[in-house]
């Protein structure tokens, strides 16, 4: 009765990479289930959704499940928790792993009970025979089922109609502890004999320490502190956190650096990228040299550098003891960090354990990996002593990897009806991927003796959704489309992944251009979009959001009041979102209301998805209205006054609709609204002013300049 190999379905990627079932599910004690996931909680509720998935496929109550996540000792290696892929890929892997486990137990129960598997079912972990409890359950059978076995994909995953937990809103499992002020964050972790540390940051790669006034720094600390130095990596360590803070602040004055490079105000502008060395590629057929008599449209859009601006500065802990390094981190990928630490510290990866502990929301590659590396570098110099590094606020702003500035030039050839027949997006950008897992250097490593070489320039490949090219191609029905990508090989600051990567600037450019084309064609923006859209799921979100917002074709704007629409399918292959924004513009922009319709396929936790979509909309609105990292004799956006974000009183009301939530494939939503929100704001501002601003952020200065020009 062996199943022929040919009939075995292919395992979902993360399960194929981690086939041992015990990495995914174990039954440690009566009534208890431990579920492992390589995905980590970044504050968006992924572990609640994973628990729902496991509960449904195993047929146990959620309360029985303890979830273990992001731990090199225990959990599957799923790379990074990023790119809105956790549920789409990690969730499907979890479903299959649980289905395989459930199937092994049903087989074992049939043997024990001497009945057919088809007569058995499971209810909250108990085995039922024709609906009647048998006294057997996961825990009575656990001794006879070998979960060290590899997944086969043979367990049948539930169908949508059979879901009991998936698809129903579940309260976030992690929220109560945070609301009652429990010690849940990495910042709250206290290890026996732990010392606090602050790093005296090397201003840039290649900068060297010229002089240290140790006495002045120690005096400022007002309690004992020590220095730990390795090359140009310098840290201050002590038992009293206040003392290391004071010493760290004093070090800015009392440590003198040479070979310091400071980015200039000009370099903060996206337009600066146009004159830089680049690596060029064309994705798609070459652009026609001659417009062949057709009208040519061209427009250029830009966005400056952005900070992740996590609410908590990064933190990392490390202990080096008996040749083993243990690291606690809030980074997005514990396995890639382990590999990067191994190369940085010349340790074998098997001698390093990395545990994930929650931090604040990161929205991408912030300082988390680097803070962990800082702790590890110090710990290696102080064997046996647990080290806790917590970055200063200004350290996070100045040294976290930034989202790169981008220039996006759109060119289109228009047919007689004013619709695009040929479309080019020409993109200038630094990399969106300097993650340790992509060969990027950990910040502290740059200060060590013989710093590792810089990796060759590169970006996220299109097979992974692209970096600067992400969403660079519109989903619309246009006969010829291409991306011309200029990868700027050197930027004034480190650049890496922020929520959506290139999708936000690209969708801003595309969707503003589409509005400009609609206007030229004398058509309503909603109608124009629908006239070049066949994909029914795309049409559905556009039509839905227009209905929600009470969109009326031809509604006139001006007098400072406007509304705009935008649409995108994230990565052109994930979730769909359309957004309408209503706003007022005087000297500044006042958002009144945002409506959003999203098709994310199968939704595991509807309220969790809505929460993430709201968050994506608000964060994107903040980027568009306020955010740009400024340079002036170095990074001059170093706190919440020099890098303001949207405040409570500036947040609009938001309405969200989820459609097509019963589709088989779930699609992540963390990033889907970033582009459409940005472009809908841009289009609404244009509608309100009767003039278009093509450069982000939409600051007061830019609005005033545009008004004066009109």
């Amino acid at each position, binding site marked *: 009765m062996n199943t022929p190999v040919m009939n075995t379905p292919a395992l979902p990627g993360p399960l194929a990479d981690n086939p041992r079932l015990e990495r995914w599910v174990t039954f440690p004690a009566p009534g208890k289930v431990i579920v492992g996931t390589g995905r980590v909680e970044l504050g968006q509720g992924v572990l609640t959704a994973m628990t729902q998935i496991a509960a449904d496929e195993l047929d146990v109550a959620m309360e029985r499940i303890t979830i273990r996540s992001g731990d090199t000792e225990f959990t599957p290696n799923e790379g990074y928790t990023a790119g809105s892929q956790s549920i789409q890929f990690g969730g499907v892997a979890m479903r299959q792993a649980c289905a395989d486990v459930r199937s092994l137990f049903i087989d074992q129960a049939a043997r024990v009970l001497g009945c057919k598997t088809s007569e058995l079912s499971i209810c909250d972990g108990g085995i039922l025979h024709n609906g009647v409890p048998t006294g057997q359950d996961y825990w009575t059978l656990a001794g006879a089922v070998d979960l060290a076995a590899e997944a086969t994909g043979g367990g049948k995953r539930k169908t949508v109609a059979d879901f009991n937990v998936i698809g129903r809103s579940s309260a976030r499992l992690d929220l109560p502890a945070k609301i009652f002020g429990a010690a849940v964050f990495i910042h709250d972790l206290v290890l026996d004999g732990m010392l606090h540390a602050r790093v005296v940051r090397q201003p840039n790669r290649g900068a060297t320490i010229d002089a240290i006034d140790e006495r002045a720094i120690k005096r400022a600390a007002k309690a004992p502190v020590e220095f730990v130095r390795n090359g140009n990596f310098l840290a201050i360590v002590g038992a009293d956190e206040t003392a290391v803070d004071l010493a760290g602040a004093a070090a800015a004055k009392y440590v003198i650096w040479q070979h310091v490079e400071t980015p200039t105000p000009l370099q903060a502008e996206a337009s600066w990228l146009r004159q830089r060395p680049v690596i060029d590629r064309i994705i798609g057929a070459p652009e026609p040299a001659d417009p062949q008599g057709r009208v040519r449209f061209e427009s250029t859009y830009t966005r400056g550098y952005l900070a992740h601006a996590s609410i908590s500065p990064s933190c990392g802990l490390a202990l080096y003891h008996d040749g083993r390094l243990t690291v606690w981190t809030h980074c997005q990928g514990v396995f890639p960090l382990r590999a990067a630490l191994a190369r940085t510290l010349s340790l074998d990866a098997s001698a390093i354990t990395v545990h994930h502990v929650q931090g604040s929301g990161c929205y991408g590659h912030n300082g988390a990996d680097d803070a962990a590396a800082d702790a590890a570098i110090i710990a290696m110099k102080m064997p046996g002593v647990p080290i806790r590094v917590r970055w200063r606020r200004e350290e996070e702003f100045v040294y976290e990897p930034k989202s790169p500035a981008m220039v996006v030039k759109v060119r289109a050839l228009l047919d007689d009806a004013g619709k695009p027949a040929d479309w080019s997006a020409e993109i200038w950008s630094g990399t969106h991927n300097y993650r340790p897992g992509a060969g990027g250097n950990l910040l502290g490593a740059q200060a060590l003796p013989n710093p590792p070489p810089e990796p060759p320039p590169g970006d996220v490949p299109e097979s992974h959704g692209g970096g600067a090219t992400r969403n660079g191609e519109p989903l619309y029905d246009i006969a010829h489309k291409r991306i011309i990508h200029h990868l700027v090989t050197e930027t004034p600051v480190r650049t890496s992944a922020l929520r959506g990567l290139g999708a936000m600037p690209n969708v801003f450019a595309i969707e503003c251009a589409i509005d400009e084309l609609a206007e030229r064609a004398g058509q309503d923006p909603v109608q124009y979009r629908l006239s070049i859209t066949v994909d029914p799921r795309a049409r559905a979100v556009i039509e839905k959001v227009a209905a929600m917002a009470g969109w009326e074709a031809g509604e006139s704007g001006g007098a400072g009041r406007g509304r705009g629409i935008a649409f995108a399918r994230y990565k052109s292959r994930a979730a769909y979102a359309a957004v309408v924004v209503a706003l007022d513009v005087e000297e500044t922009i006042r958002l009144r209301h945002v409506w959003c319709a999203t098709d994310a396929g199968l939704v595991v936790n509807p309220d969790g998805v809505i929460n993430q979509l709201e968050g994506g909309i608000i964060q994107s609105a903040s980027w568009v209205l306020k955010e740009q990292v400024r340079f002036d004799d170095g990074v001059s956006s170093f706190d919440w006054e020099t890098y303001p974000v949207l405040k*409570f009183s500036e947040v609009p*009301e938001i309405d969200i609709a989820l459609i097509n939530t019963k589709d088989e494939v779930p699609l992540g939503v963390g990033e889907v609204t970033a582009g459409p929100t940005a472009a809908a704001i841009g289009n609404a501002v244009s509608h309100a002013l009767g003039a278009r601003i093509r450069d982000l952020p939409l600051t007061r200065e830019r609005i005033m300049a545009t008004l004066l020009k009109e």
Partner: protein
Amino acid sequence: MTKKYEFTVNGRPVSVSLDNEEAPLLNVLRNNLGLMGTRFGCGLEQCGCCMVLIDGAPEKSCSKPVWSIIGKSVTTVEGLGTPEHPHPLQQAFIDEQAGQCGYCLAGILISAQALLARNPSPTRSEIAQALDDNICRCGSHNRIIRAIEKAAARMGAGAIS
């Protein structure tokens, strides 16, 4: 030189010995008293993660020297309620699922408590204004405002009955 500092935290008298009288209250709460609910966000009094009540008034604790607290009464998020006996605000935050990463929530709950103490039935706009000293980076603002409205309504109803 080590000195003793005495004040009240969440209704209980405490006494801590410190070398540095400039030590911020936040560090004392977290590192000396083990109360981790009050979070470090910026150390610059800009983000509100470290908000506590001092004699009932909302104050940022990250730069508040411990000497200035002597004899005063401090309330932290741990003093609002417990999972067994949640404060109406905490219950409303759970009901509304008001939060994403949750790092800002302790400070926001404290700001909200201070607001409701002086204005038991605030409008949406008054709530938003009162929270402008608190930064939420995840974008949970609307849920947080709804939760505070809900708590205010429940507390108001409770006061009447």
